[in-house]
């Protein structure tokens, strides 16, 4: 067995992989010991190992909290919508940019759509609120001109959701498109030419050539996105939420900020984090087993 070709190939592979193993063990797995904080009453004096064990107490506190069900629901809803509605956009954007013929135009568009990613939500939130404000916002000014009435975009749950998702898409589309553009860069140009000669128009070329060639990348990003479904970004929600929509706009990260971290409740915050991780794991495993049916699983 040790003389097999497979073994021969694996030696250099493992030489490459050895520092990786060291890295993950030291920097990822070792600190995981800290997860026990979720099951203890952590305090500074006793440290991680000396603090007393309380088992599932913190989880009990979390789930008997009347707010928690609401917050979980909100997190899932917001996240799910962001995923379903937001996932196709970077792909779409990449495909569209890919179709640009003139190089300078292509580069300009690529750079322009890249900008919003750099603005943090303090700024983008401020801009969104200004645009959709009921009294003086641009959108409402137009609406008043058209229909004579204004609409409380930011205070009605439905429209708030749309704005929330929409602004998120706008901010990250250009950034997300980069990886798809990189994938499209590797597509063999002659395939397009051949298809063109066969009479396929550009739309069909996209459907039959561009899309399939980035299929593996799409799948993997989809799986990983599903895995992070519990993470609705704190900044985005915090900047856009207001009292009128708090029933749907309060999510795990904002709740944790209010109650967990600022209260010094490390163990509670850790328990919450642990719960999120478990859900993420289940989702990734599920997503992966579905993806495997299409031969695109992670493993």
């Amino acid at each position, binding site marked *: 067995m040790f003389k097999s070709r497979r073994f021969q*190939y*694996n030696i*250099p*592979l493992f030489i*490459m992989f050895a520092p*990786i193993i060291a*890295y*993950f063990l*030291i*920097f*990822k797995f*070792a*600190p*995981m010991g*800290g*997860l026990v*904080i979720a099951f203890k009453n952590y305090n500074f004096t006793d440290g*991680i190992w000396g603090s007393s064990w309380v088992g599932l107490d913190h989880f009990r506190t979390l789930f008997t909290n009347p707010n928690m069900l609401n917050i979980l629901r909100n997190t899932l809803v917001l996240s799910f919508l962001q995923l379903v509605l937001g996932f196709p956009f970077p792909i779409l954007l990449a495909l*569209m940019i890919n*179709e*640009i013929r003139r190089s300078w135009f292509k*580069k*300009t568009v*690529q*750079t*322009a*759509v*890249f*900008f*919003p990613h*750099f*603005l943090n939500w*303090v700024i983008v939130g401020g801009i969104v609120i200004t645009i959709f404000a009921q009294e003086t916002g641009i959108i409402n000014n137009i609406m008043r001109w058209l229909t004579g009435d204004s609409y409380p975009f930011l205070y009605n749950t439905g429209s708030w959701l749309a704005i929330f998702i929409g602004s998120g898409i*706008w901010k990250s589309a250009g950034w997300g498109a980069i*990886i798809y*553009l*990189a994938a*499209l*860069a*590797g*597509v*063999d140009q*002659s395939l397009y*030419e051949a298809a063109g*000669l066969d009479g396929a*128009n550009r*739309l069909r070329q996209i459907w039959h050539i561009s899309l399939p060639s980035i299929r*593996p*990348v799409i799948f*993997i*990003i989809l799986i*990983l996105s599903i895995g992070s479904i519990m993470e609705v970004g704190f900044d985005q929600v915090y900047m856009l939420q207001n009292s009128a929509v708090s029933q749907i706009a309060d999510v795990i990260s904002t709740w944790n900020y209010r109650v967990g971290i600022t209260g010094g409740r*490390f163990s509670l915050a850790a328990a919450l984090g*642990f719960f999120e*991780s478990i859900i*993420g*794991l289940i989702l*990734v495993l599920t997503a992966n087993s579905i993806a495997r049916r299409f031969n695109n699983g*992670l*493993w």
Partner: protein
Amino acid sequence: MMMRESLGDKTFGVVNNILLILFSLSCLLPMVHLIALSFSSQSAIVSGQVGLWPVGSTMQAYEKLFENSRILTAFKNSVIITIVGVALNLLFTILCSFPLSRSYMYGRRFFTLAIVFTMLFSGGLIPGYLLVKSLGLVNTYGAIWLPGLVSVYNMLVMRTFFMGIPEELVESARMDGGGEWTVLFRIFLPLSLPVIAALGLFYGVGHWNAFFNMLIFIHSPDKHNLAVMVQQMIMSQSIMQEIGNLSPEDFKTITPESIKSAGIIVMVVPMLLVYPFLQKYFIKGMLIGAVKG
């Protein structure tokens, strides 16, 4: 090669371009607004008069920003952290994703699962800090570079790219007597320039913008980067929300909006200058063609 374009294709091209122009404009507007703010007078800004064009044109914000010569050190630090960081990131990401992309690697499934596991589960800030401290990395850039050496997300993307490279190329390299190292360096890396450029960009922007880890792990203010400076400017303004726990000093150190905007612009501009250089790697067909030929 010139082809006669059908009407349908022409329409497609036009519609495509129009939509992209509209979208690009919407992305540019906030930036234009920020630039306008950075060139406006403070009183105009407080009055809410600044839209897309500066009001009360003044270079004061930028003057003040650069007067604070800390900005040059911070900039230098940002550059060092980013360049070294990206180099390390790419090196380790490649060393991780290449083996995992080989279907004949022993324990491939196990390792992949284990690594994905680390993406989902983490001990949190305190164990992380304790680890960094026990390695003696506190207040050094090692604390910034090492813990985040490999982003699992990025690594998996690169692995996917590697897995997409045709097996024949690997075989041909082997037939020429090359081992795995040759396959990696002679075949895979040249073919993967797009994804390396993309990931380099991801890692780079990550390092450039990182402030939280800097605040926690690095104490010496002269080791701080640009992102920390700008973040301090932004945070100094949000004090209204903490009214119970302020001191007179907090009111004195509020950064004027114009300087804050100038700071943000200064942070974003280098990224925008670097990006076009990387874009050429995303031009379609450039590479596969070369290899085939």
